[in-house]
């Protein structure tokens, strides 16, 4: 099994899309911090709304609250793309047959890929928080502000929550890659589901009244959003609705979704012919 994980990791860590994805995470984080800092330091240019924001939210004490918002839906969309590429491209390149005609069985090969993908999503999560921490530290240094960090437990929980969200959606992408046996359609449908289809469905179910709130609580997007919200926000919005579900429930629901996506991928890979 270690050999399979090593092989899958070797494929992921050298793949340009994955490297670009990791760079994107760092770049977006730095950009957001940079833009926000510019707005605070140039209120005349940025306008009143931005000037009113609390500059202290950019310091290390609040970096978790600033960063975790990138997990969903932005991070989730990136995870779908990476997951879909991991499975869909194997059909186009004809590499799936190479993988499956070596020693490991189909489910073992998939397990190795899921583990490697999970490791990569963990790396992305660490990169995101690492970049956020460094940016906040730089800004605190620029302002000559004292540095204080959130507790290590909070940081660990936030990294874990982001990893769960990215992991869940990378498995959705992976499963869609196996469904369509190509990357492009899997990426397209996955992202459309995340940003459009689910939104329409949520609005529709919301319109049915409170009797159907349990349906809303089952949507993966609602749970991912609630998990992010459960950590609070750097700048509280009094008009924002409270999280639909608690953080613990969101973790369970997302874990169930992740397992379901992995099971779909396993079912498709083990039953289908590779033509």
């Amino acid at each position, binding site marked *: 099994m270690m*050999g*399979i994980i*090593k*092989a899958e990791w*070797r*494929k992921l860590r*050298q*793949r*340009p899309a994955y490297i670009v994805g990791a760079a994107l995470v760092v770049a977006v984080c730095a950009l957001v911090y940079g833009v926000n800092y510019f707005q605070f330091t140039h209120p005349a240019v940025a306008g009143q709304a931005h000037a009113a924001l609390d500059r202290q939210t950019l310091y290390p004490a609040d970096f978790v609250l600033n960063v975790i918002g990138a997990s969903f839906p932005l991070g989730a969309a990136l995870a779908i793309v990476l997951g879909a590429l991991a499975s869909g491209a194997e059909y186009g*390149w*004809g*590499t*799936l*047959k*190479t*993988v*499956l*005609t*070596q*020693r*490991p*069985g189909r489910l073992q*090969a998939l397990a190795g890929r899921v583990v490697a993908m999970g490791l990569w999503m963990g790396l992305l999560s660490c990169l995101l928080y690492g970049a956020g921490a460094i940016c906040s530290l730089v800004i605190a240094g620029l302002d000559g502000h004292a540095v204080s960090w959130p507790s290590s437990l909070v940081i660990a929980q936030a990294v874990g929550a982001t990893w769960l969200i990215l992991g869940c959606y990378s498995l959705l992408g992976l499963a869609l890659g196996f469904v369509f046996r190509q990357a492009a359609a899997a990426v397209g449908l996955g992202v459309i589901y995340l940003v459009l289809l689910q939104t329409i469905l949520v609005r529709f179910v919301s319109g049915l009244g409170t009797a159907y709130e349990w349906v809303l609580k089952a949507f993966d997007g609602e749970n991912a959003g609630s998990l992010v919200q459960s950590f609070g926000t750097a700048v509280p919005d009094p008009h924002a609705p409270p999280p639909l579900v608690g953080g613990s429930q969101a973790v369970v629901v997302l874990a169930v979704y992740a397992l379901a996506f992995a099971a779909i991928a396993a079912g498709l890979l083990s039953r289908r*012919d*590779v*033509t």
Partner: protein
Amino acid sequence: MEPTVIETHGLTKRYRNGVLAVADLDMSVRRGEVYGFLGPNGAGKTTTLRMLVGLIRPTSGWARVAGHAPGDSAGLARTGSLVETAGLYPYLSGRENMKVVADLAGVPHSRIDPVLDEVDLASSAHRRFGTYSTGMKQRLGVAAALLKTPELLILDEPTNGLDPQGMAEMRRLIRELGQGERTVLLSSHLLGEVQQICDRVGVISGGRLVTQATVAELRGERGVLVRAEPIEGAQQVLTAALGAGSVTTVDGTLQVGIDPARGAEVSARLAAAGIAVTELRPLERSLEEVFFQLTGEEQGS
């Protein structure tokens, strides 16, 4: 050790769209031989090979490959395969691709250099696979198949898309690989290639195995060809000796319907009659003729 490395019985594949790709295939490949799997495009060769390596599940029938069911880990550990094109990662170098395959197959990385040397790609191993020529890609595919030091090597149309030089190199490589104890199953629709390389062939057409025999058995020996001067005199002598039905004139030569072992007798009779024999050889059918006869295809079509 089992005498047969591949054995199938009633192997059948019908796709969901109703297409019967392989029908009731009984095939056996003996240990240590180079077996040619011949058939026109769409005959069912690739489907058969994909069933043998476990990529496609048969609708009915069974197969044993290297002593195991197709796709079984223990069987795959003893089987190297190149099914159609080399399926390797375009963004990885040749060597990194080999590392991926080695890790998947549970083979130490120390096997990589000898295998790259064997296919003459050691100097190009640092280049990205996507930049390789078609011939290099196929050779790296063969290298990947050889990493496990397999006792059975399954090669599906390995010369497809290669230029004449690439084809010649690949033929040389396959010939080398087929020496010793290794069994090679080579699928091809290139008859010259199979005739040059293989010990035994199976011919598949319309999903059915039409015949399975040695190349010599398939080509058969059906007489001797004689080129002599004057040809009319030679015809008279041989007709008188062997009967009118045994001698026919074709394109300025005589085709004599006797056992080729009696060639010396023909030569002696013509010499005794003062006729100069410029050529005398067994008359064999080419594998191409046999193939077209068996598959019902028209030559040159």
